[in-house]
């Protein structure tokens, strides 16, 4: 049923359009005893008008979970999603708003996010994008800036990420990757030294589905930099941040 839900919705939308003709806005009929219209898109805004059952409203726009509607008499106000779901389409069916679910979380294809944390005592901030080949395996590209009192570095990484339990709400993962770290020491230091090294890492972390398209992510990575001075350096990184999936 779930796999057909988008198709059904599409069909519903198509049929709905066929019934209402070429219309700029979607028209729905109130099925609750009444719904409340607020002056703004938020719970704290006052209710200034009530639309009764049987009347129709046009949906003008949406901001987060609030819908701006226009009544038959031309009054415009904001209705929240839970009340909006108590309206009927012109086919007489309950209107549906499809949001990302847990199921979409485990089957996501694209993911983008920002993480910040600690890289061996320095501050680390970065963005990343990922593509999932299947529910378990994905590939990511990340760009981080690492800043401390003596240097600033740019870290570019490509990594594969494996999730053994993609259906869990808090889904653990393992990661393995390689990249380049470009370090510039502070200009105010006497012995200023800039270098670019290859850097590999292993890591583990978790992704947690928050709501709708949002994910909380936390991870630990252990890096090994192959420096040109014959001695490999090890770094530890802890990061957390938010991401959105598509």
């Amino acid at each position, binding site marked *: 049923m779930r796999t057909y839900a988008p198709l059904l919705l599409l069909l519903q939308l198509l049929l709905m359009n*066929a019934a209402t003709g070429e219309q700029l*806005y979607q028209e729905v009929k109130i099925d609750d005893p009444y719904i409340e219209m607020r002056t703004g898109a*938020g719970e704290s805004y006052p209710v200034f008008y009530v639309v009764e059952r049987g009347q129709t409203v046009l949906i003008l726009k949406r*901001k987060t979970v609030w819908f701006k509607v226009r009544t038959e008499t031309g009054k415009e106000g904001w209705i929240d999603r839970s009340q909006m779901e108590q309206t009927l389409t012109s086919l007489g069916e309950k209107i549906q708003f499809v949001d990302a679910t847990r199921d979409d979380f485990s089957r996501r294809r694209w993911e983008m996010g920002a993480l910040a944390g600690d890289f061996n005592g320095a501050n680390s*901030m970065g963005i990343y994008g990922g593509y999932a080949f299947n529910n378990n395996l994905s590939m990511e590209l990340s760009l981080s800036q690492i800043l401390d009192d003596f240097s600033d570095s740019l870290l570019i990484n490509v990594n594969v990420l494996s999730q053994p339990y993609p259906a869990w709400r808090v889904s653990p993962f393992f990661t393995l990757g390689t990249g380049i770290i470009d370090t510039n020491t502070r200009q105010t230091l006497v012995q200023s030294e800039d270098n670019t090294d290859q850097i590999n890492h292993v890591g583990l972390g978790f992704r947690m589905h928050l709501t709708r398209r949002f994910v909380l992510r936390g991870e630990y990575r252990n890096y090994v930099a192959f420096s040109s001075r014959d001695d490999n350096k090890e770094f530890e990184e802890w990061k957390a941040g938010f991401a959105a999936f598509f």
Partner: protein
Amino acid sequence: MESRFRSLFLKTMTSFRCNLKMLCRIYSAAMLVTGLMLKQLPVFAADELLIDPVSDQEQIIKPEIERREIKVPEIDTEDFEIGVYAGLMSVEDFGTNAVIGFRLAYHVTEGAFFEAAYGSMDTEETSYEQLSGAAQLLTDDERKLSYYNVSIGYNLLPGESFIGSNHAFNSSLYVIAGVGSTDFAGDNRFTMNYGAGYRLLATDWLALHADMRDHIFKNDVLGTDKTTHNIELHAGLTFFF
């Protein structure tokens, strides 16, 4: 005499009975053959009489089916906010400077939003540089300050602002904090920022902002590494899309 008649009668009857039996057999055989023939017969007849009823006559009513052009009225979602701002930023030791920047925000709920911002300015000379005359601490390129940050904001006090007796605008006072980097004097410096702002929605899609931010970063240009607080005040215009 009587017995002769009787025997004759009996003989006749017996032969008649036999003949009747024969007749019955012949009749049933005949019926069987006829039945078989009749069973075959209509098949031949149907083959000969088969006429296509459609091709033989014109279709009286042609159905006129035209595909409707389907255009789904999508609900316009306006969760993103993009805009520009201009204002003043005080950079410790390097004067108060005009700053311009742009920002992009994404509203997750009616309360929470994410914001990414980038701003840049040309800083002034330090008092030391001005007093000593010739001494220049930074090159012109190093004197440019730019920052970026990613912050989380919350609409703490949403409400309406009244202007005169006829106009009410939706507005909110928000708090915001985040991390980023400041590129100044040839180095990138980790920067934390926090502040508060006021957003006035002129229309559903156009907003006016007034913001106050404190950018905290370590500055070692003047020898010692010190934490600096750099206050920024700016006003801006944003569009929801």
